[in-house]
């Protein structure tokens, strides 16, 4: 495994950084305060190609391999201060677009992928329920087969992008008695009767990424809206999670690198007691810890790409990376605030937002506790 980016990967990453720095950072403080999603930013991301990174050009995407996607994601994480927008892009890509690409029929792919790539359609994923979070396969949303249709009933919780989404990948069970083997995936368009985006949910961080509850009330969809086979939803869900874990973490590498650079710069310039604060060992050690975290996180993330690039399983490695990178990100966000002192705590600096955005990383795509369970299982415990 080579940790150097190839020339092509470097070129893509540089382009992503330049794009994000110049196009995605407008008005983030206000939008964060008021919970405003940037549709303009979304369209720019579509134009840049970010919404279809792994999708083959025949369906309107960029056709990048996973290592290239990770390189771009790292660049976007570095360049943009709008982590909510990036979070929305990750939800759209890994839990909506990619499952359709991987498991969709040719008709579904033709119908949806070009629009998901060009920004016309925003994708969302509805798996969690009020009573099914970590134990998501205990979901109760029912999909009842009626002739050539399915009728869905249930409530979905924490659906990222729901308030602005046009297309939902929804998981439901054919029969709760089948347990996980009954879980089946569907693609449902927003204007389908019976699908309602009900309650918008306000949150601590990632506030520019909108979220809502979604209800399905006698939502009737043609059998052709099923994604993959009956009872195979668990595999679809897990494949999404593996991609999402790998690629969201790549954003964080970018965030951690940006913070490290700005901290180095600050501790050199900021003087107290007649000298640069970086000369105080307690301050320098925080910067050192940030550097060590970044350098230990990076190979873990690129290892996921390296394995998946060879079609090898990466469940254990993705869990190791998710657990470690999320906790490292939060630690580094806190260090950055401490290094900047009172200025770090103030909204204007953006570091308090970084921390609020980071806290969710130990919760979504499987909590840290669940990652530990996955690792223990992978070790045969």
């Amino acid at each position, binding site marked *: 495994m080579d940790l150097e980016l190839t020339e092509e990967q470097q070129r893509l990453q540089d382009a992503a950084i330049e794009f994000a720095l110049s196009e995605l950072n407008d008005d983030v403080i206000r939008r964060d305060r008021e919970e405003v999603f940037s549709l303009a930013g979304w369209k720019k991301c579509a134009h840049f190609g970010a919404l279809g990174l792994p999708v083959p050009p025949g369906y309107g995407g960029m056709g990048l391999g996973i290592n290239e996607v990770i390189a771009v994601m790292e660049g976007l994480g570095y360049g943009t201060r709008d982590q909510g927008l990036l979070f929305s892009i990750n939800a759209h890509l890994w839990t909506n677009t990619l499952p359709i690409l991987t498991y969709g029929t040719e008709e579904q792919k033709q119908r949806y992928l070009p629009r998901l790539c060009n920004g016309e359609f925003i994708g969302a994923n509805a798996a969690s329920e009020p009573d099914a979070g970590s134990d998501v396969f205990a979901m109760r949303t029912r999909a009842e087969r009626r002739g050539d249709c399915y009728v869905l009933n249930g409530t979905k919780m924490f659906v990222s992008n729901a308030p602005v989404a046009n297309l939902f990948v929804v998981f439901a069970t054919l029969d709760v008695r089948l*347990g996980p083997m009954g879980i089946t995936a569907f693609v449902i368009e927003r204007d389908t009767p019976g699908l309602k985006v009900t309650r918008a949910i306000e949150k601590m961080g990632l506030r520019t990424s909108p979220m809502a509850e979604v209800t399905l009330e006698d939502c009737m969809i043609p059998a052709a809206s099923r994604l993959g086979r009956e009872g195979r939803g668990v595999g679809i869900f897990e494949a999404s999670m593996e991609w999402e874990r790998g690629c969201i973490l790549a954003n964080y590498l970018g965030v951690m690198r940006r913070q490290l650079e700005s901290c180095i710069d600050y501790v050199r310039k900021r003087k107290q007691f007649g000298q640069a604060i970086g000369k105080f060992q307690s301050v320098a050690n925080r910067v050192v810890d940030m550097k060590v975290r970044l350098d230990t996180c990076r190979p873990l993330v690129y290892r996921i790409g390296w394995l998946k690039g060879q079609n090898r399983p990466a469940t254990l490695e993705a869990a190791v990376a998710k657990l470690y990178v999320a906790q490292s990100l939060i630690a580094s966000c806190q260090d950055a605030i401490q290094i900047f002192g009172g200025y770090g705590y103030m909204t204007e600096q953006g570091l308090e937002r970084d921390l609020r955005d980071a806290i969710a990383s130990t919760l979504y795509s499987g909590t840290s506790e669940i990652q530990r369970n996955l690792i223990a299982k992978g070790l045969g415990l």
Partner: protein
Amino acid sequence: MDNIKEEIRQYILSEFLPGETPANLQDDTLLRTSGVLDSVGTLRVVSFVEERYGIEVEAHEAGVENFDSIAAIAAFVQSKKALA
């Protein structure tokens, strides 16, 4: 039949029980209810038998009745093959 059992045993050992002594995975060792196979693991076994033996497993057939032991899986595969 013995052949099928052996292939399934090898698959489960290599995918889910690395380092385990083969003797500890008997034909009647419980797989689902003992936690050797979780839901994701069971689906992988389902895909494996589908591909290996050219059968199709329906959602309602992938439950504990047919997938809780090597003997049960092999018997299920046999009956499906007989129908095919």
